[in-house]
């Protein structure tokens, strides 16, 4: 069974699909019918790859960390997605989707953002390709992430406050979808993770899979073997995780570990650990695990890292979890903070709080000296300076 491609209705096993109201159906249908053909075409791939190389700065380095390796008694590599233009892996998807929107003759882009990373990446790609851009962001997140709001504005994007519901990422997503319902013809919606109705999970997966494609080649160059023993990535919606896992799924060797945000503890009531607590339900048009009440109301999650603060996970991750292809664990806010400070001191890299979750899991592993471990360092910590200052 194929573990990385959805069926024609957008299902990975029982997860995924397109649970959207009829008002959204034509938008989704247009994408479903066209995305594969467009993004697989030579001209698209050529333009996409050249922008990733010359504008984004890919391939990003695969860095062998002597210091972490000595400390944990294994061979630890960091995939430096933090060195991408705009500071995280989000730009891979933003560039791909703006190129797609242009080919669909759309003249306007909308997107949601939580911490602002996807918003900044989208605003950047829109500035580059001269297309109108509106970003929806929860009112509370706008307050928490001021520098990213200013970055988006400097890049020419309009930032709209989502004032409904809990005024955070899930509500910004709702508002972006509502805006799309009201403007179905000229607007393309760029979702920031492997979530949402089919074909978004597959679309974003394909744009992010460049991460593991590069890891494979780089590992082969550096070690003579393209298959690591472990790949570890943080898991919010799951775009950096699927990017880092994609080419290692079903390779017969590599153990894939997704690290969720435990928040203040899985049973504290303040957590974003979807697999630990979640039940199968429907969020943003997709059937997947999500944190909800017994009655099916979606619960506002908590994580110190805004990028992991999402009540669901991408349907492909629910499927990979249920089929045992990916092990899902979680670490707390404090463990992530400690790991972030540690990497800053030993390797001179200040990671994003999201990525620090993946690093923190190293402490919980039993490793052999021969083990090759790749950690996806999905973003840099500049955006988290205010939080880091508070806990120094």
């Amino acid at each position, binding site marked *: 069974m194929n573990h990385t491609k959805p069926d024609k209705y957008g299902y990975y096993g029982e997860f995924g699909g397109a649970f*959207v109201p009829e008002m959204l159906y034509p938008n989704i249908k247009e994408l479903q019918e066209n995305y594969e053909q467009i993004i697989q075409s030579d001209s698209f791939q050529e333009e996409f790859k050249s922008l990733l190389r010359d504008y984004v700065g890919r391939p990003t380095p695969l860095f062998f960390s002597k210091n972490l390796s000595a400390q944990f008694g294994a061979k630890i590599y960091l995939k430096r997605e933090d060195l991408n233009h705009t500071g995280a892996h989000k730009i891979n998807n933003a560039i791909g989707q703006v190129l797609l929107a242009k080919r669909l003759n759309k003249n306007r882009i909308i997107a949601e953002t939580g911490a602002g990373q996807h918003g900044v990446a989208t605003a950047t790609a829109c500035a580059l390709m001269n297309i109108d851009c509106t970003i929806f962001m929860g009112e509370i997140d706008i307050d928490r992430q001021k520098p990213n709001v200013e970055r988006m504005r400097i890049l020419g994007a309009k930032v709209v406050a989502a004032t409904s519901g809990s005024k955070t990422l899930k509500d910004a997503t709702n508002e972006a979808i*509502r805006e799309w319902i009201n403007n179905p013809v000229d607007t393309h919606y760029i979702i920031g993770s492997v979530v949402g109705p089919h074909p978004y999970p597959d679309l974003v997966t394909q744009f992010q899979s460049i991460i593991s494609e590069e890891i494979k080649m780089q590992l082969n160059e550096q070690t003579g073997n393209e298959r690591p023993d472990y790949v570890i990535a943080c898991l919010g919606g799951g775009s950096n995780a699927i990017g880092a896992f994609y080419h290692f799924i079903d390779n017969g060797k590599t153990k894939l570990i997704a690290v969720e945000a435990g928040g203040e503890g899985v049973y504290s009531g303040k957590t974003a650990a979807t697999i630990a607590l979640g039940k199968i339900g429907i*969020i943003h*048009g997709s059937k997947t695990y999500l944190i909800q009440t017994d009655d*099916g109301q979606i619960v506002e999650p908590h994580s110190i890292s805004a990028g992991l603060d999402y009540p669901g996970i991408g349907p492909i991750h629910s499927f990979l979890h249920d089929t045992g292809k990916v092990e899902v664990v979680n670490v707390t806010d404090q463990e992530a903070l400690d790991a972030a400070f540690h990497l800053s001191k030993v390797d001179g890299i200040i990671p994003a709080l999201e990525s620090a979750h993946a690093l923190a899991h190293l402490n919980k592993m039993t490793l052999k000296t021969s083990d090759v471990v790749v950690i996806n360092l999905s973003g840099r910590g500049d955006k988290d300076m205010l939080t880091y200052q508070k806990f120094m």
Partner: protein
Amino acid sequence: MNRIDKLFQQKQNNLLSIYFTAGFPNLNDTLSIVRHLDKAGVDLIEIGFPFSDPLADGPVIQQSSGQAIENGMTLSMLFEQLKDVRRHTQIPLVLMGYMNPVLQFGEKEFFKKCNEIGIDGVILPDMPLDYFECKLQNIVEENDIANILLITPETNSERINQIDNLSRGFLYMVSSNSITGGNKTMDMQTEYFYRIKAMNLKNPTLIGFGIKNKETYENACKYSNGAIIGTAFIEHLKQHGIAKESIQTFIKSIRK
């Protein structure tokens, strides 16, 4: 006989259906609102069960859903409130809401419960057609529930026919491409209304979204069997309360 089918046999013009959110403004208002609407002479009532993330709804219905959830409304509670509703009224009743609460309640149990209580139809806006055909159609039919589906100005004729085939009761004709409570003018939709009328579908049609007063109601009735009002009614409840007189005043302002 299903009360919606019966309604459309007896009456084909100027139908008025009213939507309200169960649990709003207060948790236990549901039955009173149903009875007052019945007395005020509406033809059909749509009872919304709240969801935390209602994608197709504008601010007014979102807010009423949020308030209802805060008040403690759940699907189980709604069924409890409605268990004796058929002692009070024979008006056709439709439940409307999103898939996730139904999934958590249990899809089979949900439709069985609807049948037991005397609910006649269900509108689940985010239920895909293929999902209905594969997973729900049998259960819905076994329980004699009308599956009411939406069409919009962007729905192409092939799909309209498919939707018409899978629907029962009536087709919910969304007036424009928008979320509920929108302000787009009716004139823009005239072409669409005529086009649907000319298709001679098997189901009757009711027009909803953006119907908020006598003028928009009467205009909608020109092109269909009637109209649905939601947002404007919820606004009215918010400002004037749920007393019998208040509800009668609202209905009279729409249709004498």
